[in-house]
Structure formats: structure tokens, C-alpha cells
């Protein structure tokens, strides 16, 4: 017995100082292998007396457990140490730059069009489109602007032929004409798109964007127009209150016509929408002129409604603090990166119009 105990103590000491996993494994087989010391001791049990056997067996088992336990703890200890050592060597500088991120952007005009579409979608409008090249009839005559009308002077028109039959649309209103000609009332559409006028200076570009709105049904009146635009402006500028002013104006294709101003003030050199005592004109609108309805085969004694036209670029400039309209179309990489929007930032009602 004392022999075994001594063996045990020797090995415990050995294990205590051992740090090599292979050597621990060697000790394990020295003790518990086929001809291991402990294994052999167990074999001896068969040749001794029952009483002795009982006692020795119990001692042997205790020693076996103790040694095995020690070995497995030791192995774990060494492994942990080795892993820790390895991990220490493997440490990388995580502050080194990541692989190149390629960040794309959505142009402010596109973002604003999506914002506008999202808002009008909420109140049941669908999106229509029309061609950039229009004929004279759809752009002017059908819209109650005959050739000798001075209102034509307000539209500096690009022409594609000398007879002035084909032109680049000067506003999105011809989409009204197309929509009503191809369908039957009621109509409830918006039509965003490119528009063109041949002037170019600090505040005018030869190409810009408008969104047309049209709602024709049996009982649509100016109150609905006011309500619709009031809703839109509030949603678009994401403010609770908006100061808005409807002011009589004139467009050949609407009557009565109005221009809409919103209140603003300049705070710390930035424009703040919805407050203040200054007025900024942002859109034109009115009740669709009976002559227009007749031109598109809609009976004006049965149907009536409103139309509006909003400058998209201008809205974007106001909302996002962009000063220069010309910069929208100059493809300066710096400008696009600065004012562009993340492609995943899709304007929607439930997730919010903008971040």
C-alpha cells in the first residue's frame, strides 16, 4: 500500500511541474496503459486475500481517480495555456482599415421624387408618366393656351422642328391631357418628370423637374385642393405646423388658379420652413379649366377637380439646404457624395420619409 501511495505522490509531484502535453500523455500511459503501473496493481488484486483485496481495491480506486483527475486538469491547464499563447501571437491590429467600402448614392432629385410619390401614395394617388418630347397640342393648345396667348411667352420653349409642332415639354401638365384622353374619370394621379425651358442663369436651368397632380371626380372642390396640398407640404417638410398662403393667380389651364406660398424665416443663415413672416412661392394650382376638360372629352358639367404643379428641384433645395440649382446637373463627384442619399434609405410611410 505505501508503495502505491508513494508512486501516487511521486506522480502528483511530477504532474505538478510538468508543462508539456506529450509528457503528460506519456505519464498517463505509464500509469494506465496496458502494462501501466496502476493497471498492473489492479491485475495483482486477483492474487490476494478477500479482505486485503477489498481494502486495496478501494485504495487503488481512490488513487486512480485522483491521478486521472489530476491528469485531465493538467491537460486542460496546458491546453488553455497553449491556446492563450497562440492567441497572443495571432493578435492583429484591428484599427487597420477594412477592405474598401464602395458607397453609392441616390441623387437628391430622385430621392425627393420618391418622397413625393410616397406621400401622395398614402392618399391614393398613382404615378403616371409622359414623354419628354411633346407635340404642340398637348403642351399648349389642349391646355387652353392657344398660339396667340401671351401666357406662352412665360414658357421659353425648345423646339425640334421649324414648324414648332414638336417640342420639349415645358411643364408636366401634358401628362394630364394624355391621362385623361386614354382613360375615363375619375382620375387621381401625380406625374413627376423632366421639364425644359430655354433659359439658363443662376436660378434657372434649361432642364428641371416638376410633379403634376390631378384629381378629377364628381364633387372635388377647392377645399379638397387646399386640404391635399396642406397635407403634402406638412408631410414633405416633416413639420407639425406649416404656414401656408393661397393667393389668386392665373394659369390658362386652371380656373380659379392659385399660387401657394409657405412661411419661412432665416435663422443663423439657414432657411427654416413653416415659421416666420416671409413668404416663399412653391407651387401653382387651381381647378381644371372646363375648356381643358372638354378638350380631353370629360364632361365639365359632371366632373370637376383640381390640378397642381410643383418644382421638384426647388423643394429639394429648400428641404435639404441646397443653394445652387445648377449644381444639381453638373455631376461634381464631391457634390453628389455630399448631397446624395444612401440607396437603402427608401422613403416610405411606415419607416419615415427621411432619416
Amino acid at each position, binding site marked *: 500500500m505505501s508503495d502505491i501511495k508513494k508512486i501516487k505522490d511521486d506522480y502528483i509531484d511530477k504532474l505538478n511541474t510538468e508543462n508539456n502535453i506529450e509528457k503528460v500523455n506519456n505519464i498517463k500511459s505509464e500509469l494506465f496503459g496496458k502494462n501501466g503501473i496502476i493497471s498492473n496493481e489492479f491485475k495483482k488484486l486477483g492474487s490476494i486475500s478477500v479482505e486485503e483485496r477489498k481494502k486495496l481495491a478501494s485504495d487503488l480506486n481512490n488513487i486512480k481517480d485522483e491521478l486521472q483527475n489530476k491528469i485531465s486538469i493538467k491537460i486542460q491547464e496546458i491546453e488553455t495555456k497553449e491556446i492563450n499563447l497562440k492567441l497572443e501571437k495571432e493578435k492583429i491590429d484591428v484599427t*487597420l*482599415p477594412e*477592405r*474598401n467600402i464602395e458607397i*453609392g*448614392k*441616390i441623387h437628391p432629385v*430622385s430621392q425627393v421624387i420618391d418622397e413625393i*410619390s410616397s406621400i401622395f401614395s*398614402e*392618399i*391614393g394617388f*398613382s*404615378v403616371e408618366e409622359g*414623354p419628354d*418630347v411633346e407635340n404642340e397640342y*398637348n403642351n399648349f393648345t389642349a391646355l387652353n393656351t392657344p398660339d*396667340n396667348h401671351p*401666357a406662352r411667352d*412665360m414658357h421659353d420653349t*425648345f*423646339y*425640334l*422642328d*421649324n414648324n414648332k409642332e*414638336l417640342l*420639349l415639354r415645358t411643364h408636366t401638365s401634358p401628362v394630364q391631357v394624355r391621362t385623361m384622353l386614354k382613360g375615363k374619370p375619375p382620375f*387621381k394621379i401625380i406625374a413627376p418628370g*423632366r421639364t*425644359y425651358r430655354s433659359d439658363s442663369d443662376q436660378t434657372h436651368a*434649361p*432642364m428641371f423637374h416638376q410633379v403634376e397632380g390631378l384629381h378629377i371626380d364628381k364633387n372635388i*372642390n*377647392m*377645399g*379638397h385642393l*387646399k*386640404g391635399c396640398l396642406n*397635407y403634402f407640404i406638412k408631410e414633405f417638410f416633416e413639420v407639425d405646423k406649416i404656414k401656408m398662403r*393661397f*393667393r*389668386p*393667380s*392665373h394659369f390658362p389651364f386652371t*380656373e*380659379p*388658379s392659385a*399660387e401657394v406660398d409657405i412661411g419661412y424665416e432665416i435663422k443663423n443663415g439657414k432657411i427654416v420652413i413653416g415659421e416666420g413672416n416671409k413668404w416663399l412661392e412653391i407651387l401653382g394650382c387651381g*381647378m381644371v379649366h*372646363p375648356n381643358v376638360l372638354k378638350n380631353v372629352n370629360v364632361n365639365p358639367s359632371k366632373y370637376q377637380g383640381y390640378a397642381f404643379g410643383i418644382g421638384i428641384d426647388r423643394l429639394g433645395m429648400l428641404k435639404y439646404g441646397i443653394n445652387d440649382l445648377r449644381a*444639381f*446637373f*453638373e*455631376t*461634381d*463627384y*464631391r457634390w*453628389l457624395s455630399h448631397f*446624395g442619399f444612401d*440607396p437603402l434609405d427608401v422613403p416610405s410611410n411606415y419607416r419615415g420619409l427621411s432619416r
Partner: protein
Amino acid sequence: MKFTVDWLKNHLDTKFNNNQIIDKLTNIGLEVESFESSTSELDTFIVAKIINAKTHPNADRLKLCDVDVGSDKTIEVVCGAPNAKNGLLTVYAPPGSIIPKNQMKLSVSKIRGVTSYGMLCSESELLLSNESDGIIELKNNKYANKIGEKYFKNTSEKVIDLSITPNRPDCLGVRGIARDLSAAGAGKLKINKKSNLKYRGNQNINVTIKKEKAQGCTIFGSCLIKGVTNKESPKWLKDKIKSLGQKPISAIVDITNYVMFDLNRPLHAYDADKIDNEIIVRSSSKGESFEALDNKKYILENDMCVISDRSGVLGLGGIIGGTRSGTEYSTKNILLESAYFLPRSIRKTSKQLNIDTDAKFRFERGIDPLSIEEGLIKASELIKQICGGEISNLDVKKIDNYKKTIINFDPFLFEKTTGFIVENKELIKILEKLGFNVTKNKKIFKLVVPSWRPDITQSIDIVEEIVRIKGYEHINTSEPIKTRLKPTLNYYQKLFHFLQRSVASKGYLETVTWSFTDSKINQLFKENDEEISIVNPISSDLNVLRNSIFPNLLFYLKKNLDRGFKDISLFEIGPAFKGKNPGDQLTVIGAVKAGKVSRLSWNDKERIVDAFDVKKDVIQSLCEAGIDKDDIVIDDKTPSYYHPGKSGGVYQNKNEKNALAYFGEIHPNIIKKLDIKTEGLVIFEICLDCIKETKQKIKDSKSEYKFSDFQKSERDFAFIINKNFKSQELVNIIKSVDNKLIKSVRVFDVFEGENIPKGKKSIAVNVTIQSEEKTLNENDLDNINKLIISSVESKSGAKIRS
């Protein structure tokens, strides 16, 4: 339309103050653009301080002064005044100023080799005194804190500038504005004084309006005023003319202008002694000419309305008079014209000749045809008062009579249109104050439209009159009606939205460029499309509609490269034009990618962008937009602006004849022609309109979910194959061996050169084989392997690499 409040009060009795008037004008649709003092030539002279006066390097008598004019930087002025010294407060005139004494306009000039920006003024130069020995010395206590401010106070009356919409010719005269204000409750319109003018003798210059088809004049009224003394206008009249932003000319001309702005009644004064016998109002013949009061000679076309005498054309009726019969200070006898010209004729003639005058602006909008006499009387009275003379009887020739416009108006239309009610009593009051004659017949109003309102022709016009005078603030704000008639976006609009954002998410910046471009660049990309020229382009390098998006994209790519950017990814989604008729356009995406991938990366090897970068972007974007990748087929036929060997076309499926997208390198010739300096340039384009609409919604088109848990095996093969043999075909051959068992085929190596015969290449593929019914054993797999090898070898002429 400009006028002063004083002038308005000639026609309007009002208790409103200026701000109330301004607000009222805007509220009734007469938009106030500005309300400020008219600019004066003296506005430019400002208080300044000499900071440092040193001797001119090339002239002992001159001084070089650094002058503080109230801006960030001082200004250098050369000055000859002996009293110019440091710290002196004086008056500075910047370049462009007009010196009152000699009416000279200052310009930037070099004086003895030193540039002088403007001038420091003496009292005599400003006509303040005769003191010309030195520059003005301003008192410190009064002017020290006024540096940069105007020296002369602008004492002119404040001018209201209205933006009058084209439907309101009546408000191009002060009286019309007063009438609108009175209807809106801002005061009472004054009644015109009855004239007690004494007429003597007849207008003995015979006037004939020729009855011609294209006759643009229907009424010609006139009177003779004999024995006038033309002169400078009196101060009150000069001030009125100046407040309009115009220059006084002579009493007679100023009076006709004054009446035009006062009553919206254009007039013309002829020197009666210069008229050859008679006045004939007729249509012109092509080639006739005359010299107009703007000192230009106009050569006329057929059928322009001219006022002529026996010697020829005197002037263009309602547009501009001629120099031959113009009034001068020496004029003794005048013929005063007050006529009605048809808007259509005026507009056509003025467009053809490109003339714009105040008279033309009014006649083309429609002048009150019943104001002929009123205008003659008012002007004659003033002429008699200022210039003396005797006035003949008025002579009015007509070839057409004015017909009243009568509208039967149902007030219900007002409520139906505006959503609110105005009591009949108020409604009548508004209309009567605007000049309508109102009679009521049961529920319907019979309205006689005033002759000065050519814009009012039907009931809806009446609604507008009432609502604008009543005020738009009375319109209720109804909650938006949310009823939806159809989905917000259709298939192609959704596609637009998806693809736009898919492409952007691949690292491309979206841009928006003009729909027009430079024909010189466009022709490199137009293929077989027709060139669509703009008749009146904004500039010669934006003279055609773009047939492709690339001309603009490459133009701006180059600009950004010039700005020092090296790695650029740009795209635009928008129209490309295929013809000049409405609808001849396609919605396309064009994208460019230039430079390197992983530039200056510490861990990745940098390389030049290549065709497979854009191939990935285009295919991935299409997949994200809902196109099935397994259906997509690629070929190598591309438009001529692509590199012929390094570009491809993308087809929605194997049955499509037309590519919906292209990708690859741009043709080297184009890079050279456009002088684009970059390490690499690849492009892609997607034609949205070429994508076939999938009719089924995703909820109906998802196939049944199937998967296999049986073991899958992967096998690698390498084939030696003709260099031109397309990998896509090889993959298809392998797949077609057993569509059920072969789950995927991936090309993982392509190799030419060493150990490979000339004209051949080695392609290595990895094939995944899996059954949906059982675990394949070695035998099954061997059979498939053999089948793959034999199929490929027989169908492609390839040899398996051993």
C-alpha cells in the same frame, strides 16, 4: 406694372395704409413683386474713408489712396486732390457711376501706370457747389459711422411693382388696379371728372381703315391739336414718368405715356405737319420698310397692320411709331391717335419682327375698345394745359362694332367649385364694383361683362372673380380623400425604382444630366439612331437630344478626372431618345466605372477595373430587380462603342432576340477621341423598356419548395478546348447531361499558354452532383463522369486533360 401710392390715390379714396394696400393687392391676385424707392443714379455714391494716402510712384502731384468703402477689402484709388490725406472722410464713386457734373460714366482706368478703381469726388463734380479744388471733406461726427452707406438720400416716392398675369390687361393701368381694390373693400373708386374741354374745328386729316381680310385695326380715333409748344414736362409729370423707371422725353410723349399707364390706354402722337395728306390704316406688303422710334429700320412682311400716309409707312399700329412723323420740341401741330388693334395681329407682327414695347404688351392682351374717346380727352386736356393749343373735334373711324359679352351665371357653380357660399347680396356687390352690370332672373344672374375685361367669357371666370375678391382664406381646408383608384406604381415604375437603387448600392453615384448633349460626342454613341437636333439650343454644345446616356456621362467623367478623382463610379437612369416623335424614347441606365479596384489597399492587391466588375454589377442588379439568373444568356455582340473583344450583351432568356443590357470596356478609339485619361474604363447599360414584364405577382409565381438531403458529390474536370469556345456553352453542355442530377457547374480556372497547344485553352470546372431520390454510389458517379466527358468531347471537340 409700376406705380406709386400717390398715383393710386388719384383714383382711389382709401383709408388703408401702404402695408394694407400691399397685402390687399397680393390677396386679390395682383402680386406685389416689390415696394421700394426707384433706383437713382446717385445711389452709387458712398461715404468712404482714406486709410492711407501715399505719393503716386510716377507722378508727384497724384496720390495713391487705400480707401475704406465699407467692404472687406480697401480699394485703391488714384486721386489728384491736394487735400487727400490719411483719415479723411469723403465721397467715393465706384466704376459704373455717372458723375453728375459731366454725365461721364466712370470705368476702371490706369492713371500713369497705376490702376484706379473709381474716384473720390469734389463738391463741384457732384453739383453741390463750385468748389473744385479738392475732394469733399465730410465731418467726422456726422459720417464716421456711415462708411459704406449711400451719400445721397433717395427721396423718391416708393414704387409698387406688380406682376400682372396675362389675363389682366385692365390692371396694366392704375385705374384698373384702383377698381379691383375698391371691389375688395380697400376704398372707393373715384368718379372721373366730366371734361369741359372746348373743341374747335374738325379733324381734317382724312383717316381710312381699309377693309382687308388681315386688317388688324378695327377702330381708329384721333384729334388734331394745333399750335402747341412742346417742352420739358413739368416736375409732377417727370416724377411720374421716372417712378415708372422711364426717362422723361418731352411733354407730349410723356403725356401719352402717362395716360397709357394711368388708364391702360395707349396713344400715339404724330407731328401732323409731317403726315403726307391722309392716314391709311392697312396691311403691309412684303418688303415695305420704315425707321422706328427705337432707331431701327424694320423690313415688313405681308399683312402687318401699318399706319401709313401717301408716302408710305408711318408706323406699326399698336406696336411702335416711326421717326418720320415723330414729335419734336419744334412740333407745332399734332395728330393724336387712340385706336383698337386686335391682340392676335399685334402678337403675330411683334413676334415676327421681335419688337417688345409697352403698347404692344397692352394691345396683345386686349385693350378696352370703349376707351378710345376717354384716352383722347384725357391726353388732350393735359396737352392743352401744359403745351397750349386748340383741340379739334374727335374723329372715330370703325370697321367693327364692339359686342357686349353676356353671361348667365348660376351662383350654385360658385359653391360647387369653391366649397363655400357667398350670399347673393355680396356677390352682386362684388361684381358691380368690378364693373359688371347685374340683373337677376330667378336664380340666374344675367351679367354684362365690362368692356375692359376681355378675359371673362364664361361662368367659371365669374367664379374666379368672386372668390379672388372675397379672399382665398375663406376656402375650407378639407381632409384629403384617401380613396385609391389603382396601385401607385406599375411594373416598369417599380423596375425603375428597384434598378436605380440596386445599381447605386454597388457603389455608383447617381447623377442627373441634361437630356440634350453635344452632337459631336453623341455621334460616337448613336449607332443607327437618327440625330435629333434642337432648333433653338441653349448653346451649340447642347444641340441634340441624347441618343444614349454615355455622351454626357463620359463628358462629366472626364471633368471629375480633371478634378483629380481617380476611381469613379457614376450612373444615370433616364431617357435616351430614338426618334423625334413623342414616345420615341427608352428608359435606360448608363453606368461608368473608371480607375482601379482596391487602390492603395494594405491587404488586397490593387488592379484595374475590368469587364467582369461591371458584368457582376449588371447581373446582380438584374437579379435584384427580379430577373432569374439561371435564365440569363450572354453573348458577345455589342454596339460599336464597346471594345469588340471585351464586351458582352445580356439577354433575359435564350429565346430573346434583343439584349436588355450590355457591359464591357469602351472602345479605345473613343477614349482617345474624348481624351479621357484613366487607367481603366468599363461601362454598362440596361434598357428598362427591353425587360419583359412578368405578369405574375411573386405570390403566384414562387415554385414549390423542394430540397434534397441525400449526399452531394463534387467532381472537378479540366478540358482542353478551342480558344474561342465560350465557357457558357461548355457549362450548358455539362448541365444538359442530366438536368436533375447536376445541380451546379462552376468555372474555376481558365488557362492558356504553357503546356496548352496554340489556339486552345484549358477550362476547369467543378460539378456538383446530387440526387433527389437516393445517395449515389461510386458506380453511379462514375457513369455520370464518363457521360460528362463524352458529351463535352463530342459536342465541343474538347479533350479532357489527364
